[in-house]
Protein backbone atom coordinates (compact mmCIF):
# COMPACT_ATOMS: atom_id res chain seq x y z
CA UNK A 1 0.00 0.00 0.00
CA UNK A 2 1.37 3.40 -0.96
CA UNK A 3 1.63 6.47 1.21
CA UNK A 4 -0.43 9.63 1.53
CA UNK A 5 1.30 13.04 1.48
CA UNK A 6 0.89 13.17 5.27
CA UNK A 7 2.52 9.77 5.71
CA UNK A 8 5.43 10.78 3.48
CA UNK A 9 6.07 14.01 5.37
CA UNK A 10 5.74 12.35 8.75
CA UNK A 11 7.94 9.40 7.76
CA UNK A 12 10.61 11.88 6.80
CA UNK A 13 10.12 13.85 10.01
CA UNK A 14 10.19 10.72 12.17
CA UNK A 15 13.19 9.20 10.41
CA UNK A 16 11.31 5.94 9.80
CA UNK A 17 8.35 4.80 7.71
CA UNK A 18 5.04 5.49 9.43
CA UNK A 19 1.51 4.67 8.44
CA UNK A 20 -1.89 5.64 9.77
CA UNK A 21 -2.33 5.14 13.49
CA UNK A 22 1.39 5.10 14.31
CA UNK A 23 2.61 7.27 17.17
CA UNK A 24 5.68 9.31 16.29
CA UNK A 25 7.89 12.20 17.29
CA UNK A 26 8.19 14.45 14.25
CA UNK A 27 11.11 16.83 13.76
CA UNK A 28 9.72 20.29 13.21
CA UNK A 29 11.05 22.56 10.45
CA UNK A 30 9.52 25.83 11.66
CA UNK A 31 7.71 27.05 14.77
CA UNK A 32 5.51 30.14 14.56
CA UNK A 33 4.24 32.17 17.50
CA UNK A 34 2.50 35.48 17.92
CA UNK A 35 2.09 38.39 20.31
CA UNK A 36 -1.10 37.06 21.91
CA UNK A 37 0.58 33.84 22.99
CA UNK A 38 0.94 33.01 26.67
CA UNK A 39 4.49 34.35 26.78
CA UNK A 40 4.60 34.96 30.51
CA UNK A 41 4.15 31.25 31.22
CA UNK A 42 6.44 30.21 28.37
CA UNK A 43 9.26 32.46 29.44
CA UNK A 44 8.99 31.10 32.98
CA UNK A 45 9.24 27.55 31.55
CA UNK A 46 12.47 28.37 29.71
CA UNK A 47 14.02 30.54 32.42
CA UNK A 48 13.21 28.48 35.51
CA UNK A 49 14.51 25.32 33.84
CA UNK A 50 17.56 26.94 32.27
CA UNK A 51 16.41 25.91 28.78
CA UNK A 52 17.29 27.22 25.33
CA UNK A 53 15.27 27.09 22.14
CA UNK A 54 16.48 24.08 20.11
CA UNK A 55 17.19 26.11 16.96
CA UNK A 56 16.54 29.87 17.21
CA UNK A 57 16.80 30.33 13.43
CA UNK A 58 13.64 28.26 12.97
CA UNK A 59 11.44 30.28 15.30
CA UNK A 60 9.28 33.02 13.75
CA UNK A 61 7.54 35.56 15.99
CA UNK A 62 4.85 37.82 14.54
CA UNK A 63 3.11 40.83 15.98
CA UNK A 64 -0.42 40.44 14.66
CA UNK A 65 -3.17 40.48 17.26
CA UNK A 66 -2.26 43.76 18.91
CA UNK A 67 -1.03 47.12 17.69
CA UNK A 68 0.78 48.27 20.76
CA UNK A 69 2.12 47.13 24.09
CA UNK A 70 -0.73 46.55 26.54
CA UNK A 71 1.71 46.01 29.38
CA UNK A 72 0.03 42.73 30.24
CA UNK A 73 0.96 39.07 29.83
CA UNK A 74 -0.30 39.16 26.26
CA UNK A 75 0.90 41.74 23.78
CA UNK A 76 3.81 42.69 25.97
CA UNK A 77 6.07 43.62 23.09
CA UNK A 78 9.15 44.58 25.19
CA UNK A 79 8.97 41.27 27.07
CA UNK A 80 8.76 39.31 23.80
CA UNK A 81 11.63 41.23 22.18
CA UNK A 82 13.91 40.78 25.16
CA UNK A 83 13.13 37.06 25.45
CA UNK A 84 13.88 36.59 21.74
CA UNK A 85 17.25 38.31 22.23
CA UNK A 86 18.11 36.16 25.25
CA UNK A 87 17.24 33.04 23.24
CA UNK A 88 19.43 34.18 20.30
CA UNK A 89 16.42 34.27 17.99
CA UNK A 90 17.67 36.42 15.07
CA UNK A 91 16.15 39.90 15.17
CA UNK A 92 15.07 39.33 11.56
CA UNK A 93 12.79 36.50 12.76
CA UNK A 94 10.84 38.87 14.99
CA UNK A 95 8.33 40.49 12.64
CA UNK A 96 8.08 43.70 14.57
CA UNK A 97 6.02 46.77 13.66
CA UNK A 98 6.74 47.78 10.07
CA UNK A 99 7.47 44.22 8.96
CA UNK A 100 4.52 42.80 10.87
CA UNK A 101 1.66 40.65 9.70
CA UNK A 102 -0.32 37.58 10.55
CA UNK A 103 1.34 34.42 11.85
CA UNK A 104 -0.45 32.44 9.11
CA UNK A 105 1.14 34.55 6.36
CA UNK A 106 4.53 35.89 7.47
CA UNK A 107 6.27 32.47 7.73
CA UNK A 108 5.17 31.74 4.15
CA UNK A 109 6.10 35.13 2.69
CA UNK A 110 9.53 34.99 4.24
CA UNK A 111 10.40 31.47 3.19
CA UNK A 112 10.33 29.63 6.52
CA UNK A 113 7.59 27.23 5.41
CA UNK A 114 8.87 24.43 3.21
CA UNK A 115 7.03 21.72 1.30
CA UNK A 116 7.62 18.25 2.69
CA UNK A 117 8.21 19.42 6.26
CA UNK A 118 6.33 19.79 9.55
CA UNK A 119 5.23 23.27 10.64
CA UNK A 120 3.98 23.96 14.19
CA UNK A 121 1.89 27.02 14.99
CA UNK A 122 0.85 28.58 18.29
CA UNK A 123 -2.39 29.93 16.81
CA UNK A 124 -5.50 27.86 16.09
CA UNK A 125 -5.55 28.61 12.36
CA UNK A 126 -2.08 27.10 11.84
CA UNK A 127 -3.32 24.53 9.29
CA UNK A 128 -3.68 27.44 6.81
CA UNK A 129 -0.11 26.78 5.70
CA UNK A 130 -1.03 23.25 4.64
CA UNK A 131 -1.51 25.02 1.30
CA UNK A 132 2.31 24.84 1.08
CA UNK A 133 2.49 21.04 0.75
CA UNK A 134 3.62 20.85 4.36
CA UNK A 135 2.12 19.26 7.48
CA UNK A 136 0.90 22.34 9.34
CA UNK A 137 -0.43 21.78 12.84
CA UNK A 138 -1.79 24.14 15.49
CA UNK A 139 -0.53 23.10 18.90
CA UNK A 140 -1.34 26.16 21.03
CA UNK A 141 0.15 25.86 24.51
CA UNK A 142 2.43 22.97 23.53
CA UNK A 143 4.61 25.39 21.56
CA UNK A 144 7.21 26.06 24.29
CA UNK A 145 7.84 22.33 24.70
CA UNK A 146 8.24 21.95 20.95
CA UNK A 147 10.69 24.87 20.95
CA UNK A 148 12.65 23.16 23.71
CA UNK A 149 13.04 19.83 21.89
CA UNK A 150 12.49 20.57 18.19
CA UNK A 151 9.94 17.81 17.82
CA UNK A 152 6.28 17.14 18.46
CA UNK A 153 4.19 14.03 19.03
CA UNK A 154 1.67 13.02 16.42
CA UNK A 155 -0.32 10.00 15.38
CA UNK A 156 -0.02 9.43 11.66
CA UNK A 157 -3.53 10.46 10.59
CA UNK A 158 -6.27 8.87 8.60
CA UNK A 159 -6.56 10.91 5.40
CA UNK A 160 -9.49 11.84 3.18
CA UNK A 161 -8.71 12.50 -0.49
CA UNK A 162 -10.52 15.47 -2.00
CA UNK A 163 -10.33 15.37 -5.80
CA UNK A 164 -11.02 18.72 -7.48
CA UNK A 165 -11.97 19.00 -11.16
CA UNK A 166 -12.95 21.97 -13.29
CA UNK A 167 -12.58 25.63 -12.37
CA UNK A 168 -14.04 27.90 -9.73
CA UNK A 169 -16.70 30.36 -10.96
CA UNK A 170 -15.70 34.03 -10.65
CA UNK A 171 -16.37 35.50 -7.20
CA UNK A 172 -16.14 32.17 -5.41
CA UNK A 173 -13.35 32.02 -2.83
CA UNK A 174 -11.69 29.71 -0.31
CA UNK A 175 -14.34 30.27 2.33
CA UNK A 176 -17.02 28.99 -0.03
CA UNK A 177 -15.02 25.82 -0.62
CA UNK A 178 -14.37 24.98 3.01
CA UNK A 179 -17.93 25.88 4.07
CA UNK A 180 -19.22 23.26 1.64
CA UNK A 181 -16.63 20.72 2.76
CA UNK A 182 -17.60 21.45 6.36
CA UNK A 183 -21.23 20.66 5.54
CA UNK A 184 -20.43 17.54 3.54
CA UNK A 185 -17.83 16.11 5.91
CA UNK A 186 -19.42 16.74 9.31
CA UNK A 187 -18.88 13.56 11.30
CA UNK A 188 -16.27 12.39 8.79
CA UNK A 189 -13.40 14.91 8.86
CA UNK A 190 -12.90 15.13 12.64
CA UNK A 191 -9.44 14.03 13.77
CA UNK A 192 -8.44 13.38 10.15
CA UNK A 193 -6.48 15.17 7.42
CA UNK A 194 -7.89 16.37 4.10
CA UNK A 195 -5.49 15.93 1.19
CA UNK A 196 -6.24 17.62 -2.13
CA UNK A 197 -5.68 16.17 -5.54
CA UNK A 198 -6.96 16.43 -9.11
CA UNK A 199 -6.55 18.76 -12.07
CA UNK A 200 -8.67 21.49 -10.49
CA UNK A 201 -6.09 22.22 -7.80
CA UNK A 202 -3.70 23.89 -10.27
CA UNK A 203 -6.43 26.35 -11.27
CA UNK A 204 -6.84 27.68 -7.71
CA UNK A 205 -4.67 30.64 -6.65
CA UNK A 206 -2.43 30.03 -3.64
CA UNK A 207 -4.33 32.68 -1.65
CA UNK A 208 -7.53 30.67 -2.13
CA UNK A 209 -5.83 27.41 -1.13
CA UNK A 210 -4.68 29.06 2.10
CA UNK A 211 -8.24 30.19 2.81
CA UNK A 212 -9.46 26.63 2.25
CA UNK A 213 -6.88 25.07 4.59
CA UNK A 214 -7.79 27.80 7.09
CA UNK A 215 -11.07 25.92 7.61
CA UNK A 216 -9.48 22.74 9.01
CA UNK A 217 -9.93 23.70 12.69
CA UNK A 218 -13.65 24.38 12.23
CA UNK A 219 -14.12 20.97 10.71
CA UNK A 220 -12.31 19.36 13.64
CA UNK A 221 -9.69 18.16 11.15
CA UNK A 222 -6.04 18.01 12.15
CA UNK A 223 -4.93 19.82 9.01
CA UNK A 224 -5.17 19.89 5.21
CA UNK A 225 -2.37 19.22 2.72
CA UNK A 226 -2.26 20.56 -0.83
CA UNK A 227 -0.02 19.11 -3.52
CA UNK A 228 3.08 20.87 -4.82
CA UNK A 229 2.64 22.38 -8.28
CA UNK A 230 3.91 25.14 -10.55
CA UNK A 231 1.82 27.78 -8.74
CA UNK A 232 3.40 26.96 -5.39
CA UNK A 233 6.85 26.61 -6.90
CA UNK A 234 6.59 30.06 -8.48
CA UNK A 235 5.59 31.62 -5.16
CA UNK A 236 8.40 29.95 -3.23
CA UNK A 237 11.10 30.85 -5.75
CA UNK A 238 13.27 33.58 -4.28
CA UNK A 239 11.60 33.26 -0.88
CA UNK A 240 12.64 29.89 0.55
CA UNK A 241 15.58 29.90 2.94
CA UNK A 242 16.81 26.47 1.94
CA UNK A 243 16.20 23.70 -0.53
CA UNK A 244 13.20 21.47 -0.12
CA UNK A 245 11.75 18.24 -1.38
CA UNK A 246 7.98 18.26 -2.02
CA UNK A 247 5.82 15.20 -1.49
CA UNK A 248 3.14 13.67 -3.64
CA UNK A 249 0.74 10.92 -2.76
CA UNK A 250 1.34 7.46 -4.19
CA UNK A 251 -1.33 6.33 -6.69
CA UNK A 252 -2.30 3.52 -4.30
CA UNK A 253 -2.11 5.65 -1.14
CA UNK A 254 -4.17 4.45 1.79
CA UNK A 255 -7.07 6.94 1.99
CA UNK A 256 -10.06 6.20 4.24
CA UNK A 257 -12.33 7.93 1.77
CA UNK A 258 -12.29 9.85 -1.53
CA UNK A 259 -14.68 12.67 -2.44
CA UNK A 260 -14.80 14.23 -5.88
CA UNK A 261 -15.94 17.78 -6.63
CA UNK A 262 -16.47 19.90 -9.71
CA UNK A 263 -15.15 23.33 -8.75
CA UNK A 264 -17.71 24.82 -11.12
CA UNK A 265 -20.44 23.65 -8.75
CA UNK A 266 -19.26 25.84 -5.86
CA UNK A 267 -21.16 29.03 -5.03
CA UNK A 268 -20.94 31.86 -2.47
CA UNK A 269 -22.12 30.68 0.93
CA UNK A 270 -22.91 32.57 4.12
CA UNK A 271 -22.39 31.26 7.64
CA UNK A 272 -24.07 32.50 10.76
CA UNK A 273 -24.97 34.09 12.92
CA UNK A 274 -23.51 32.65 16.14
CA UNK A 275 -22.23 29.37 14.76
CA UNK A 276 -19.81 28.71 11.85
CA UNK A 277 -21.61 25.49 10.94
CA UNK A 278 -24.90 27.32 10.26
CA UNK A 279 -24.38 27.69 6.50
CA UNK A 280 -26.68 28.65 3.64
CA UNK A 281 -26.30 29.77 0.03
CA UNK A 282 -25.97 33.54 -0.37
CA UNK A 283 -29.08 33.47 -2.57
CA UNK A 284 -31.10 32.01 0.30
CA UNK A 285 -30.21 34.73 2.82
CA UNK A 286 -33.20 37.00 3.30
CA UNK A 287 -32.98 40.74 3.86
CA UNK A 288 -30.34 41.23 6.55
CA UNK A 289 -29.29 44.83 7.21
CA UNK A 290 -25.75 45.40 8.44
CA UNK A 291 -23.91 47.97 10.54
CA UNK A 292 -20.36 46.82 9.95
CA UNK A 293 -18.34 44.95 7.34
CA UNK A 294 -14.83 43.58 7.62
CA UNK A 295 -12.31 42.37 5.06
CA UNK A 296 -9.19 40.93 6.61
CA UNK A 297 -7.72 38.15 8.79
CA UNK A 298 -6.02 34.87 7.87
CA UNK A 299 -9.22 33.96 6.04
CA UNK A 300 -9.71 36.97 3.73
CA UNK A 301 -6.88 39.52 3.96
CA UNK A 302 -4.74 38.38 1.01
CA UNK A 303 -4.17 39.97 -2.41
CA UNK A 304 -6.74 37.80 -4.17
CA UNK A 305 -9.40 38.84 -1.62
CA UNK A 306 -8.43 42.51 -1.76
CA UNK A 307 -8.47 42.57 -5.57
CA UNK A 308 -11.96 41.07 -5.77
CA UNK A 309 -13.24 43.41 -3.06
CA UNK A 310 -11.72 46.42 -4.83
CA UNK A 311 -13.36 45.34 -8.10
CA UNK A 312 -16.71 45.51 -6.32
CA UNK A 313 -15.99 48.85 -4.64
CA UNK A 314 -14.35 50.71 -7.53
CA UNK A 315 -16.39 53.82 -8.35
CA UNK A 316 -18.94 53.08 -5.61
CA UNK A 317 -19.55 54.27 -2.07
CA UNK A 318 -19.96 52.31 1.11
CA UNK A 319 -23.49 52.72 2.47
CA UNK A 320 -23.46 55.64 4.95
CA UNK A 321 -24.91 53.43 7.69
CA UNK A 322 -22.08 50.91 7.40
CA UNK A 323 -18.47 51.08 8.53
CA UNK A 324 -16.22 48.99 6.30
CA UNK A 325 -12.78 48.18 7.67
CA UNK A 326 -10.07 46.59 5.54
CA UNK A 327 -7.01 45.05 7.19
CA UNK A 328 -4.36 43.64 4.85
CA UNK A 329 -2.89 40.42 6.19
CA UNK A 330 0.73 41.59 6.18
CA UNK A 331 3.02 44.52 5.50
CA UNK A 332 4.03 42.92 2.18
CA UNK A 333 0.39 42.57 1.10
CA UNK A 334 -0.29 46.16 2.20
CA UNK A 335 2.64 47.38 0.07
CA UNK A 336 1.44 45.42 -2.94
CA UNK A 337 -2.15 46.58 -2.48
CA UNK A 338 -0.90 50.15 -2.32
CA UNK A 339 1.13 49.69 -5.49
CA UNK A 340 -1.88 48.26 -7.34
CA UNK A 341 -4.08 51.14 -6.21
CA UNK A 342 -6.40 48.95 -4.15
CA UNK A 343 -5.90 50.97 -0.97
CA UNK A 344 -6.93 54.14 -2.82
CA UNK A 345 -10.03 52.32 -4.06
CA UNK A 346 -10.97 51.25 -0.53
CA UNK A 347 -10.43 54.67 1.00
CA UNK A 348 -12.12 56.36 -1.96
CA UNK A 349 -15.17 54.17 -1.45
CA UNK A 350 -15.42 55.22 2.17
CA UNK A 351 -13.72 52.27 3.85
CA UNK A 352 -10.92 52.66 6.36
CA UNK A 353 -7.71 50.65 6.08
CA UNK A 354 -5.81 49.65 9.21
CA UNK A 355 -2.33 48.43 10.07
CA UNK A 356 -1.82 44.77 9.01
CA UNK A 357 -2.63 41.82 11.26
CA UNK A 358 -5.69 40.01 12.60
CA UNK A 359 -7.65 43.27 12.80
CA UNK A 360 -11.20 42.82 14.07
CA UNK A 361 -11.16 39.02 14.04
CA UNK A 362 -10.81 38.15 17.71
CA UNK A 363 -12.23 38.74 21.14
CA UNK A 364 -10.63 41.89 22.57
CA UNK A 365 -9.62 43.33 19.20
CA UNK A 366 -8.44 46.93 18.92
CA UNK A 367 -9.93 47.52 15.47
CA UNK A 368 -12.20 50.48 14.66
CA UNK A 369 -14.63 47.77 13.60
CA UNK A 370 -15.09 46.47 17.18
CA UNK A 371 -18.75 45.43 17.39
CA UNK A 372 -21.17 47.07 19.79
CA UNK A 373 -24.27 45.57 21.41
CA UNK A 374 -26.87 44.42 18.91
CA UNK A 375 -24.87 45.34 15.81
CA UNK A 376 -24.92 43.16 12.70
CA UNK A 377 -21.68 42.50 10.83
CA UNK A 378 -20.67 40.64 7.71
CA UNK A 379 -17.05 39.60 7.62
CA UNK A 380 -14.51 37.63 5.66
CA UNK A 381 -12.78 36.71 8.90
CA UNK A 382 -12.60 33.42 10.69
CA UNK A 383 -15.41 32.93 13.22
CA UNK A 384 -18.84 34.13 14.23
CA UNK A 385 -19.31 32.77 17.74
CA UNK A 386 -21.04 35.34 19.98
CA UNK A 387 -18.51 37.84 21.30
CA UNK A 388 -15.90 36.95 18.71
CA UNK A 389 -15.50 40.51 17.32
CA UNK A 390 -16.70 42.56 20.29
CA UNK A 391 -20.10 42.54 22.02
CA UNK A 392 -21.58 39.10 22.60
CA UNK A 393 -24.99 40.41 21.52
CA UNK A 394 -23.68 41.41 18.07
CA UNK A 395 -24.63 39.10 15.18
CA UNK A 396 -21.83 38.03 12.85
CA UNK A 397 -22.19 36.55 9.36
CA UNK A 398 -19.21 35.08 7.50
CA UNK A 399 -18.82 35.35 3.72
CA UNK A 400 -16.13 35.86 1.10
CA UNK A 401 -14.49 39.29 0.63
CA UNK A 402 -16.42 40.14 -2.55
CA UNK A 403 -19.74 39.48 -0.82
CA UNK A 404 -18.61 41.58 2.16
CA UNK A 405 -17.73 44.48 -0.18
CA UNK A 406 -21.06 44.24 -2.03
CA UNK A 407 -22.93 44.11 1.27
CA UNK A 408 -21.07 47.18 2.56
CA UNK A 409 -22.27 49.13 -0.48
CA UNK A 410 -25.84 47.86 -0.26
CA UNK A 411 -26.20 48.17 3.51
CA UNK A 412 -27.50 44.64 3.67
CA UNK A 413 -26.13 41.19 2.85
CA UNK A 414 -25.91 41.17 -0.95
CA UNK A 415 -24.36 39.41 -3.89
CA UNK A 416 -21.81 41.44 -5.88
CA UNK A 417 -23.99 41.31 -9.02
CA UNK A 418 -27.05 42.69 -7.22
CA UNK A 419 -25.35 45.74 -5.76
CA UNK A 420 -26.36 48.41 -8.28
CA UNK A 421 -30.07 48.81 -7.69
CA UNK A 422 -29.93 48.10 -3.98
CA UNK A 423 -30.45 51.14 -1.80
CA UNK A 424 -29.78 49.33 1.45
CA UNK A 425 -30.92 50.13 4.95
CA UNK A 426 -31.22 47.93 7.97
CA UNK A 427 -34.02 45.41 7.79
Amino acid at each position, binding site marked *: MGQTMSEKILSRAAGRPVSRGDFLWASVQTVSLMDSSNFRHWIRFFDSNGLKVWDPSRVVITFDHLYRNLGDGVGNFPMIRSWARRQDIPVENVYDIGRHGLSHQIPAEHGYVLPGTVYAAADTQGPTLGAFNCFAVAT*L*DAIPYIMATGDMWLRAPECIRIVLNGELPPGVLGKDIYFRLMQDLAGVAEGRVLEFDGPGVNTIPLDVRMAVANGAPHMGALTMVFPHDAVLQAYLKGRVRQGYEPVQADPDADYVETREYDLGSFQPLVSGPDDPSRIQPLDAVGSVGIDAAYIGSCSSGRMHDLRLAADVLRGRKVHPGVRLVVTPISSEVMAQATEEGLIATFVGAGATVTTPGCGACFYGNQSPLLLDDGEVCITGSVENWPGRMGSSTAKIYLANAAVVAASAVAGRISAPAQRAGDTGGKA
Partner: protein
Amino acid sequence: MILKGTVWKFGDNVTSNYFLSGKYDGMVRAGEFDKLVPHVLEDVMPDFASRARPGDIIVAGRAFGTGKHLEGLVGAFKAMGLGGVVAQSFAAAWERDAINLGLPSVICPEVPPRVQTGDRLELDLAQGLARLPGQETALKVTPTPAGIISILQAGGLEAYTLQRLGRRA
Protein backbone atom coordinates in the same frame (compact mmCIF):
# COMPACT_ATOMS: atom_id res chain seq x y z
CA MET B 1 -2.29 2.99 32.85
CA ILE B 2 -5.80 1.88 33.79
CA LEU B 3 -8.97 3.97 33.72
CA LYS B 4 -11.46 2.67 36.27
CA GLY B 5 -14.75 4.38 37.02
CA THR B 6 -18.40 4.95 36.33
CA VAL B 7 -19.44 5.75 32.79
CA TRP B 8 -21.18 8.95 31.67
CA LYS B 9 -22.32 8.18 28.15
CA PHE B 10 -22.72 10.74 25.36
CA GLY B 11 -23.50 10.44 21.66
CA ASP B 12 -21.79 11.61 18.47
CA ASN B 13 -20.55 15.14 17.69
CA VAL B 14 -20.66 16.46 21.24
CA THR B 15 -19.00 19.89 21.23
CA SER B 16 -17.03 21.60 23.97
CA ASN B 17 -19.75 24.28 24.05
CA TYR B 18 -22.29 21.60 24.97
CA PHE B 19 -20.35 20.91 28.16
CA LEU B 20 -19.35 24.46 29.02
CA SER B 21 -20.81 27.74 27.80
CA GLY B 22 -18.53 30.29 26.18
CA LYS B 23 -19.80 32.82 28.73
CA TYR B 24 -17.26 31.47 31.22
CA ASP B 25 -14.30 32.43 29.04
CA GLY B 26 -13.17 34.90 31.69
CA MET B 27 -12.66 32.09 34.22
CA VAL B 28 -10.82 30.06 31.57
CA ARG B 29 -8.44 32.91 30.81
CA ALA B 30 -7.87 33.47 34.54
CA GLY B 31 -7.11 29.75 34.94
CA GLU B 32 -9.91 29.44 37.56
CA PHE B 33 -10.80 25.87 36.66
CA ASP B 34 -12.26 25.03 40.09
CA LYS B 35 -14.84 27.76 39.59
CA LEU B 36 -15.81 26.25 36.21
CA VAL B 37 -16.74 22.89 37.73
CA PRO B 38 -20.34 23.71 38.79
CA HIS B 39 -21.03 25.05 35.30
CA VAL B 40 -20.11 21.88 33.42
CA LEU B 41 -23.29 20.66 31.68
CA GLU B 42 -25.35 23.05 33.81
CA ASP B 43 -27.96 23.62 31.09
CA VAL B 44 -28.47 20.00 30.03
CA MET B 45 -27.67 17.91 33.12
CA PRO B 46 -27.68 20.27 36.10
CA ASP B 47 -26.74 17.62 38.66
CA PHE B 48 -23.75 16.31 36.68
CA ALA B 49 -21.12 18.29 38.54
CA SER B 50 -22.39 17.21 41.95
CA ARG B 51 -22.91 13.55 40.98
CA ALA B 52 -19.70 12.91 39.05
CA ARG B 53 -17.03 11.22 41.15
CA PRO B 54 -13.26 11.24 40.78
CA GLY B 55 -12.26 8.60 38.28
CA ASP B 56 -15.55 8.71 36.37
CA ILE B 57 -15.18 8.27 32.64
CA ILE B 58 -16.82 10.23 29.83
CA VAL B 59 -17.64 7.81 27.00
CA ALA B 60 -18.70 9.32 23.69
CA GLY B 61 -19.24 8.40 20.06
CA ARG B 62 -17.66 9.98 17.03
CA ALA B 63 -16.05 13.43 16.74
CA PHE B 64 -15.97 14.36 20.42
CA GLY B 65 -14.74 17.85 21.30
CA THR B 66 -15.18 20.17 18.35
CA GLY B 67 -15.68 23.79 19.36
CA LYS B 68 -13.76 26.46 21.19
CA HIS B 69 -11.77 27.09 24.34
CA LEU B 70 -10.94 23.48 24.90
CA GLU B 71 -8.41 24.20 27.62
CA GLY B 72 -11.27 25.43 29.84
CA LEU B 73 -13.16 22.17 29.57
CA VAL B 74 -10.01 20.09 29.94
CA GLY B 75 -9.17 22.13 33.05
CA ALA B 76 -12.69 21.70 34.45
CA PHE B 77 -12.63 17.92 33.84
CA LYS B 78 -9.26 17.73 35.60
CA ALA B 79 -10.53 19.84 38.49
CA MET B 80 -13.45 17.39 38.87
CA GLY B 81 -10.98 14.53 38.97
CA LEU B 82 -12.53 12.77 35.99
CA GLY B 83 -10.54 9.79 34.83
CA GLY B 84 -10.68 10.70 31.17
CA VAL B 85 -12.60 10.55 27.92
CA VAL B 86 -13.01 7.42 25.79
CA ALA B 87 -14.46 8.00 22.32
CA GLN B 88 -14.76 6.53 18.85
CA SER B 89 -12.98 9.60 17.46
CA PHE B 90 -12.00 13.10 18.54
CA ALA B 91 -11.76 16.51 16.98
CA ALA B 92 -8.03 16.82 16.37
CA ALA B 93 -7.58 19.78 18.69
CA TRP B 94 -9.33 18.06 21.60
CA GLU B 95 -7.12 14.99 21.45
CA ARG B 96 -3.93 17.10 21.27
CA ASP B 97 -4.86 19.62 23.94
CA ALA B 98 -6.24 17.07 26.39
CA ILE B 99 -3.21 14.80 26.17
CA ASN B 100 -0.81 17.74 26.34
CA LEU B 101 -2.57 18.89 29.51
CA GLY B 102 -2.52 15.37 30.99
CA LEU B 103 -6.19 14.39 30.66
CA PRO B 104 -6.50 10.88 29.17
CA SER B 105 -8.49 11.11 25.93
CA VAL B 106 -8.23 7.86 24.10
CA ILE B 107 -9.69 6.43 20.93
CA CYS B 108 -11.27 3.08 21.60
CA PRO B 109 -14.08 2.44 19.11
CA GLU B 110 -15.09 -0.87 20.69
CA VAL B 111 -16.15 0.57 24.05
CA PRO B 112 -18.85 3.23 23.38
CA PRO B 113 -21.44 0.89 21.76
CA ARG B 114 -21.12 -1.53 24.69
CA VAL B 115 -21.64 0.74 27.74
CA GLN B 116 -24.30 3.01 29.22
CA THR B 117 -24.33 5.73 31.84
CA GLY B 118 -23.87 4.19 35.27
CA ASP B 119 -21.90 1.15 34.09
CA ARG B 120 -18.57 0.37 35.72
CA LEU B 121 -15.75 0.40 33.19
CA GLU B 122 -12.18 -0.71 33.61
CA LEU B 123 -9.92 0.03 30.66
CA ASP B 124 -6.28 -1.01 30.50
CA LEU B 125 -4.94 1.47 27.97
CA ALA B 126 -1.61 -0.21 27.25
CA GLN B 127 -2.94 -3.76 26.99
CA GLY B 128 -6.09 -2.75 25.18
CA LEU B 129 -8.35 -4.67 27.54
CA ALA B 130 -11.80 -3.50 28.64
CA ARG B 131 -13.72 -5.03 31.53
CA LEU B 132 -17.40 -4.40 30.91
CA PRO B 133 -20.44 -5.11 33.06
CA GLY B 134 -21.88 -8.59 32.71
CA GLN B 135 -18.90 -9.98 30.82
CA GLU B 136 -16.76 -12.74 32.28
CA THR B 137 -13.67 -12.03 30.27
CA ALA B 138 -12.05 -8.76 29.32
CA LEU B 139 -12.73 -7.56 25.79
CA LYS B 140 -9.75 -7.00 23.50
CA VAL B 141 -9.92 -3.38 22.34
CA THR B 142 -7.70 -0.85 20.56
CA PRO B 143 -4.70 -0.12 22.79
CA THR B 144 -3.40 3.41 23.37
CA PRO B 145 0.06 4.01 21.88
CA ALA B 146 2.84 3.74 24.47
CA GLY B 147 4.07 7.24 23.55
CA ILE B 148 0.76 8.78 24.55
CA ILE B 149 0.64 6.79 27.80
CA SER B 150 4.13 8.11 28.68
CA ILE B 151 2.95 11.72 28.28
CA LEU B 152 -0.16 11.03 30.37
CA GLN B 153 1.81 9.27 33.09
CA ALA B 154 4.11 12.27 33.39
CA GLY B 155 1.03 14.45 33.89
CA GLY B 156 1.18 16.21 30.53
CA LEU B 157 3.59 17.51 27.94
CA GLU B 158 5.33 20.11 30.13
CA ALA B 159 6.39 17.55 32.71
CA TYR B 160 7.17 14.97 30.05
CA THR B 161 9.37 17.42 28.15
CA LEU B 162 11.35 18.18 31.31
CA GLN B 163 11.80 14.44 31.85
CA ARG B 164 13.05 14.01 28.28
CA LEU B 165 15.50 16.87 28.76
CA GLY B 166 16.65 15.39 32.08
CA ARG B 167 15.60 18.48 34.02
CA ARG B 168 13.31 17.07 36.72
CA ALA B 169 10.34 14.78 37.27
